[in-house]
C-alpha cells in the first residue's frame, strides 16, 4: 500500500480538531521521546505517546483512524508524567481526553480496551443512579458488562469483613440535580 499521499496538506484533520477543541498544538512536538521514556505504561501500549503525536502530525485519514483505534488512548493513566517532562509543554493528557471522546463518538474503540471502557461506564452508571459511588453496584455492573465474573471474587469477603464494602448504597438527596448533569453532558447527543 503506497503512502505517497500521507503527507499532503489537508483541510480537516484530527490534529486540527485537537487544536480547535483543546488548544493543544501537535506541531510543537519535535519527537524528542521524553514522554515515551517516562510513561509508566509505555511498554503495554501499541503506540508510545511520542509516536502517537507523530501519527497525528502526518495528517492522513488512514493514520488518524489508527490513532482513534489505538489501545494507547485507553491505557493512558492520565498520570501527567508526560506533560510534566515535555520540553515543549504539549498537553498530551488533554489531547488524550479529546481523542477518547472522538473514538467513542466514532465507535472506533480498540477491542482490547473493552474492559477499561466497561469499567468507566459502570462507574459512571453508579454515580448517575446514586450520586456517589456504590461499590457493590459498580462491581456488579462491571461484571455484567465484562462477563468477567470470577475476577476479584476472592477479595470481596475480606473487603466486607474489613468494613470496606457497604451493602446498601448511600444516595445523594438531590438526585434530580445529578441526573440533570448527566443528561446535559454525557447522555446528550451533542455532549462532550
Amino acid at each position: 500500500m503506497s503512502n505517497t499521499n500521507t503527507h499532503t496538506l489537508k483541510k480537516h484533520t484530527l490534529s486540527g480538531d485537537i487544536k480547535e477543541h483543546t488548544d493543544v498544538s501537535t506541531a510543537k512536538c519535535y519527537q524528542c521521546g521524553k514522554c515515551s521514556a517516562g510513561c509508566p505504561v509505555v511498554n503495554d501500549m501499541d503506540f508510545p505517546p511520542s509516536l502517537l503525536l507523530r501519527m497525528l502530525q502526518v495528517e492522513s485519514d488512514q493514520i488518524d483512524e489508527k490513532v482513534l483505534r489505538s489501545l494507547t488512548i485507553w491505557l493512558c493513566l492520565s498520570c501527567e508524567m508526560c506533560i510534566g517532562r515535555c520540553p515543549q509543554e504539549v498537553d498530551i493528557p488533554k489531547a488524550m481526553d479529546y481523542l477518547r471522546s472522538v473514538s467513542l463518538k466514532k465507535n472506533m474503540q480498540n477491542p482490547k480496551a473493552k474492559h477499561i471502557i466497561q469499567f468507566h461506564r459502570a462507574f459512571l452508571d453508579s454515580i448517575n443512579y446514586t450520586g456517589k459511588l456504590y461499590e457493590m453496584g459498580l462491581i456488579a455492573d462491571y461484571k455484567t458488562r465484562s462477563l468477567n465474573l470470577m475476577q476479584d471474587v476472592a477479595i470481596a469477603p475480606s473487603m466486607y469483613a474489613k468494613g470496606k464494602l457497604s451493602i446498601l448504597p448511600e444516595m445523594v438527596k438531590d438526585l434530580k440535580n445529578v441526573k440533570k448533569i448527566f443528561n446535559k453532558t454525557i447522555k446528550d447527543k451533542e455532549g462532550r
Partner: protein
Amino acid sequence: MIKLGFYPGCSLEGSSREYSESVMAIAKKFDIELVQVPDWNCCGASAAHNMSKELALSLPARIIALAEKAGFDELVVPCAACYNKITVTKHELFEDVTLKERVKDIISLDYTGNIKILNVIQMIEKYIIKDIDFKLENKFLHKVACYYGCLLVRPTKILQFDRPEDPQSMDNVMRAIGAEPIDWAFKTECCGAGLTVSRPDVVNKLSGNIVEDAISRGAEAIVVACPMCQANLDMRRPGIDKYLNKKTTIPVIYLTQAIGLATGCTEKELGLQRHFVPVNLS
C-alpha cells in the same frame, strides 16, 4: 477550634474508610472541626474525564458550588484524586469564562470558584504542624518511603504544590514526627490508578516496582496520601507478590495514620485493622 469544609469523596466512605477515620482522629486531636459538604456527590475521578469533558467539569463544580453555599472558605480534600479533579476544575473554569457559564448552566447552581482547596498535606502544614511537637507522644522511629503518586503534584502549573520531581512536603511532615524518610526513585511514579479493576496486570507491575524500590532501600513502611494508591499497594499485594515473585510484608499506611500513631491515637481509631498487609509498627 478551627472549622474547615471537608470533602471525603467516595473512597473515604467506602473501600478506604480507614483514611477517613484517621483524618477525623487527628482532626479531633488538633482541635479541627471538619464539616462535610452537604449532599456532596462523586467527583467523577478518572472515569468522568475519560468519557466526557463536560461531565468531568460539572461533577466537581457541583461540589465546589455546594461548599460555597455552605459558607466554607477552605475545603479539605484528603483524597488526592478528588483534590486534583476539583482543583483542576476550579482552574479551568477560572481561565475560560464561557466554559464557566456553560457549567453553571449544567449544574444549575451558583458558582464563583473563590473557595480554597487544601489537600491533606496542606491541611497538616497549615493547621497541625505547629502543634506537633507539643502533642507528640511516641516518636515514629521508622524508615519510611513517602509515596506521593501522580495526582498530588501534577500538573505543576495548576496545582502549584511542592516540586514535581522529588517532592518533600510529606517527607518534612514525617520528619516532624521523628521518622526517617528515605531517598528513593519512585516517589511520583504512577501506581496504576484507575486500571485496578480492568487491567490488574498493569497495576501489579507498576505498584510492584514501587514496592520493590521501597523495600530495597530499607523502608519499613510506605506512607501515602491517596486512597487509590493505598488500595493498589495494599489490597493488590497478592498480585504484586506474584509479579515480584516473592512475599513482601511492607505495610502501606496513610500519612494521617502515621501522625495518629505518633500522637497517641489507638490502632482502632485509625482503622489499621482494615489493612490487607498487616501494619505492625510499634
